[in-house]
C-alpha cells in the first residue's frame, strides 16, 4: 500500500519524539494493527496528526470522528466527480441529473468537513487521500451504480455507527446533529441508486425490525480500504 506522507507541524515534533517510540513499542507489544481501536485510549494522544508506520492518523475524540467522515466524503466525492466527468455508456438524462446532484452534494460534504475541521483543529486535519478505483469499470452502468450503492450504503452505516462515538459535551452535540443532517441525505442517495439498479429496492438493507445497520469505523474502513490507497490509522478513534 502506498502511503501519503506529510510532515507534522513543528510545534508538535518535540512532543512526538518524547512519546513516539514508546507508543510504537507498545503497539508492537500488543501486536497492534489498524484494527485495534481501543489500545490508543490508554496511550498518549499528543500525536494525533502524525504519520507513523500506521498511516494517516485520523486522530482521537470528536476531531477523529470528523476526520473519519471527511475521509469517507473524500472517497464518495472523488467517485462521483469521475462518474460525472466521464459518464458510462447509455447514461440516461434522468440518471445524469441525479448523479450530478449527488456529485454536488458529496463535494459539498467533503468541502464542509475540510472547512469545519480546519476551523476547529487545523493541526489535526487529514490530508487529501489518494483513491484507488482500479476495480471499477467507469464505462459500465452496472459497475458504476453497484459501486455507488455500496458507497452510499456504507456511508449510512458509518454515520449510524459513529453517532454514539461523538462526545456529549462541548461541540459534540453540534457534531452529532451535523452527522444526522448528512446521513439522511446519504440514505436518500442510497435509496435512489438502489432504485436505479432495481426499482423498489430502496430499503432492502433493513433488518427484521425495519432498521438500517450501523458499522464501527474498523468495519467501515476494512471495506473502504479497497478504494483508498492512502493507509488510514483509526486506532485512536473513540470506541
Amino acid at each position, binding site marked *: 500500500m502506498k502511503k501519503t506522507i506529510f510532515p507534522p507541524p513543528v510545534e508538535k515534533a518535540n512532543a512526538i519524539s518524547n512519546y513516539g517510540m514508546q507508543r510504537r513499542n507498545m503497539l508492537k507489544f500488543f501486536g497492534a494493527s489498524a484494527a485495534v481501536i481501543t489500545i490508543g485510549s490508554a496511550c498518549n494522544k499528543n500525536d494525533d496528526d502524525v504519520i507513523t508506520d500506521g498511516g494517516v492518523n485520523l486522530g482521537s475524540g470528536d476531531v477523529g470522528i470528523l476526520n473519519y467522515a471527511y475521509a469517507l466524503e473524500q472517497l464518495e466525492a472523488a467517485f462521483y466527480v469521475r462518474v460525472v466527468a466521464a459518464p458510462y455508456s447509455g447514461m440516461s438524462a434522468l440518471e445524469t441529473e441525479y448523479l450530478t446532484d449527488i456529485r454536488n*452534494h458529496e463535494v*459539498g460534504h467533503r*468541502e464542509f468537513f475540510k*472547512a*469545519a475541521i480546519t476551523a476547529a483543529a487545523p493541526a489535526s486535519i487529514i490530508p487529501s487521500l489518494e483513491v484507488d478505483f482500479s476495480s471499477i469499470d467507469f464505462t459500465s452502468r452496472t459497475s458504476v451504480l453497484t459501486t455507488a450503492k455500496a458507497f452510499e450504503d456504507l456511508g449510512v452505516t458509518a454515520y449510524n455507527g459513529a453517532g454514539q462515538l461523538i462526545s456529549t459535551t462541548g461541540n459534540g452535540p453540534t457534531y452529532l446533529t451535523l452527522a444526522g443532517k448528512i446521513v439522511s*441525505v446519504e440514505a436518500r442517495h442510497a435509496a435512489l441508486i438502489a432504485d436505479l439498479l432495481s426499482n423498489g429496492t430502496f430499503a432492502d438493507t433493513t433488518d427484521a*425490525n425495519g432498521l438500517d445497520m450501523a458499522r464501527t469505523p474498523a468495519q467501515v474502513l476494512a471495506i473502504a480500504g479497497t478504494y483508498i490507497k492512502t493507509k488510514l490509522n483509526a486506532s485512536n478513534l473513540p470506541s
Partner: protein
Amino acid sequence: MNLQNIISEIEKVDPEVYGRFDSRRSVMKKFTNISSKIALAAVPTMVASMFSRAYGQTPGDVNSVLNFALTLEYLEAEFYTNIVGSVGYLTAPAAAQAALTKIRNDENKHVIFLKSVLGAAAIAKPTFDFTAGNGSGVGPFTGYLTNYAVQLAMAQTFEDTGVRAYKGQATNLQSNRTALTAALNIHSVEARHAAHIRQMRRALDAAIPASQKPLKPWITLNYSGIDFPSAQSNINLSYAGEEITTQAGVNIVGLGGTFNTAAAASEGFDEPLTAAQVLAIVDPFIV
C-alpha cells in the same frame, strides 16, 4: 475489580440500578467484551463511562423521546395500513403498490420495535384523523382514501417530517448509546422511504407546483413540491428551514465549484425539527 460487587452495593441505595443500564445482562456482556479486548489499564475508564451514561440522563428522558418517536411511527403505520388496499391505492401501478406495502410493513415493524424497547413505558396508540380535521373527520384531506395523488403527498410529508423529527431528537438520546444508534438506524430508513415516495410522485406528476419541478429524492430549498391549497400552510411547516445553506458557520454555496448553488447546498443537508415543531405539524392528525 469486581463490577458485580460494585453494582450490588449501588443496588442497596438505588434499587433501579440495573434499569439504568440497558439490562443487567448487557452490562455484564459489555464488561466481558471490554476486558477481553483492551488493556486492563483502560477498564476503570470504561466502567466510569458506563456509569456516567447510565446516570447522565434519567431513563424517563430517553423514554419520552422514544415515546415521541413511537407516536410518529403509530401515525405512519396506521396511515399506510389504511391506504394499502384502498380505492386510491388500487389505481396505482403494481410497483407503486408494492412499494407502499413494503413501507407499511417497515413502519409497523418500527412500532413493534419501539414498543418492545419501551415495554410497560410505551404509550398507547392515539386516535388519528387522517383528514387532518382534529377529529372532525372532514379536514382538508377528506377523501384521501380514494385519491392516490393525495395519498402520496401525505406520505411524502409524513416521511420527510419523520426524518427531521428523529434528527432533532438525536442529541436527547446521547446518554443512551443503544437507544441513539437504534434511533439513527430508523432515521435513515425514513429517509429511504422519503426518497422513494418522492420518485413515485415525480413519476405520477400530480399536484407538484410547476415552479418546484423537477421533484427530487432530496429536499430542494424549502420546497414541499406539493400543491394542495387547503392544507398548504400546514404542509409548508414540514419544509420550513430546509433552505439553509450555512452549516456550523460554513457557507456551503460555491464550495468546491460553482455547481454548488443554494439549491444544491440545501439539498446536501437535511435539517432537524424540534419536538414542538413536529407536534404542531402532526396535531391536526391526532384526535
